[in-house]
């Protein structure tokens, strides 16, 4: 099952590799990982999307918590939360009139940017389900897809 784990960790050099190394050393899955400064400039917030049964997720949370640089760990998918992902899709400018896209154009989470060399870039910020659906819709015309991985917050 898919889980999002939110980690607050000291903004020390090497902190990211401690987390990434833990996942590979213990064969935990990692679907996406994003890291950026938090409200506290000396700490970073990391959002990890992973999957596993309850025992595996329990181990992931415990092992993360055991890292000396980690201040706080929470699994946010088991209770109310909001999550979003950003995705950029580069297409040919001529494809902006594609039938599939037309139906999406009214979507308030979607923007189309003009790009060089006869290209256009679609930007989509939405829930992971909607992002997946969007990618499915445009995958045949996509030249390049860049996803940020999800971030989330308990509500």
């Amino acid at each position: 099952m898919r889980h999002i784990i939110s980690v607050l960790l000291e903004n020390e050099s090497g902190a990211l590799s401690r987390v990434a190394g833990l996942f590979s050393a213990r064969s935990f899955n990692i679907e996406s990982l994003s890291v950026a400064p938090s409200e506290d400039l000396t700490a970073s917030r990391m959002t990890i999307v992973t999957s596993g049964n309850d025992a595996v997720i329990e181990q992931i949370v415990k092992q993360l918590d055991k890292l000396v640089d980690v201040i706080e760990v929470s699994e946010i998918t088991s209770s109310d939360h909001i999550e979003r992902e950003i995705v950029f899709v580069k297409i040919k400018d001529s494809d902006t009139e594609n039938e599939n896209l037309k139906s999406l154009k009214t979507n308030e989470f979607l923007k189309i940017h003009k790009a060089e060399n006869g290209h256009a870039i679609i930007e989509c910020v939405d829930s992971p389900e909607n992002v997946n659906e969007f990618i499915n819709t445009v995958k045949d015309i996509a030249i390049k897809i860049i996803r940020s991985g999800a971030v989330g917050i308990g509500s």
Partner: protein
Amino acid sequence: MKQNTDNNNEKFTGAEIFVKCLEAEGIELVFGYPGGAVLHIYDELHKQNEVSHILVRHEQGAVHAAEGFAKSSDKPGVVLVTSGPGATNSITGIADAYMDSVPIVIFTGQVRTALIGNDAFQEVDTVGITRPCVKHNFMITDVKDMASTIKKAFYVATTGRPGPVVVDIPKDITEDKCEFNYPDSVEMRSYNPIIEISDDSIKQATEKILSCDKPVIYAGGGVINSNASEELTKFAKYLNFPVTNTLMGLGCFPGDDPQFIQMLGMHGSYEANMAMHDCDLLIAVGARFDDRITGRLDKFSPNATVIHIDVDPSSISKNIKAHIPIHGDVKAAVNKLSEEIISKNLKPKNIDRWWGQINEWRKKDSFKYNQDSDIIKPQFVVDSLYKVTKGDAFITSDVGQHQMWAAQLYKFNKPKRWINSGGLGTMGFGLPSAMGTQFANTDSLVCCITGEASIQMCIQELSTCLQYGLPIKIINLNNRYMGMVRQWQEFFYEKRYAMSYMDALPDFVKLAESFGHVGIKVEKSSDVESALEDAINMKNRLVFLDFITDQNENVFPMIATGAAHNKMILS
């Protein structure tokens, strides 16, 4: 972090501060080996007398020595090595300390900060390489952080579940100057080893303890790390529950006590493994259910309620689901349980029937062997050593058959007397860890039980032993085979003994003599006891006893990998 502000603004070099930190931390001994990146530090060590430096012959030996020192005392072990190969040579020891939760701090030199990342001479990414096998590591990038980082390193290494901490120090940091303030205490928001034990879990555990019919206490190295042997022994004696130990836990409950049902696991006793299989209440204390203990997971203690006390929450329910997890320091948890039970004078149910069953299993005498000829049985040497030393020696061991026989047959009555490599299984551990043990216990008898394969992995430390006059007794069980490898090949590879035969062995007597020690070869069983006595009577000499033993002896009982506890091979 509070700082001791009592200073006069005098500035010191990083190397001077380093030595002052060790002094402030109360460190008397450092095991190490010099090299370019740490020369400033060595120069400062040379100028003072508070901190002694022990020169090993290989950095792996330094770390094992520090482990032996820490495991046989109440103090952390300290290692100092240079950058590059100095650091990489120490990795095996660091990984060993990580697996067995040994509190040591390893200081590694590093190339100058300006050179880091440039593939400089003797540069290696020490922080990167050691990351998966340390409790934590640091690189000091500013001399102003030297004192606080060293304070943190010792704090992290020695608190909670102990472990190795690496501090990487670039050479220029040891030249830079600043004022010296050693912090009085440490506060780290991301690391808090003080754990409040849940009353609820203690209550649930108490109920089970008072209502069970077939209990077993399964106690591991955490009891020793927590200095809780006395408390656990009192608790177990009050309840009259059977106690089994892991390899790391030996000595945390008296080995000659009738309630002791011996070591459990792959080479554990018949009674311990059968009791683990049939029990209805399993009280795991500072043990981590590793695969050498559990065997086949889905057949492990199938009918038991599991109470698991551990300071490391990630050890709880990792391999075996704990029905009643007690997260906290072992000593504090056992004290809380004792308050609930002993202080209130509550009594558990009568378990005479369970003891009757256990005593039936005991009759198998599963560690038995036959010393029936001139050919020396390796078990007989361990038995004789136990007899001659009256069970009161510090015993270190290497890894393999000799280690299992030592664990089975030397009855440890006190904690911190049995020093071995349990988790990583590091051949070469025995001799250097005996050095550290001897340094921590200068007037005590230290014996290293080893084999002719293991001993050769750190044999160079015989030179260190001469330099510092360490009167270690080396008990070499020489069967001319990598015995445990041969045993597996005999059982599981149709006796194809691939590479397990030790051809072209050195003459260990001459080898010991060439290092300036005494060597004695023993070939007849009737000479074993007297040779051990002679060696022990040479109080100031290292004696290398080369026992030529039966080549075909195997360690029994044995649970094959992936088998259940009640499927033991007995002979």
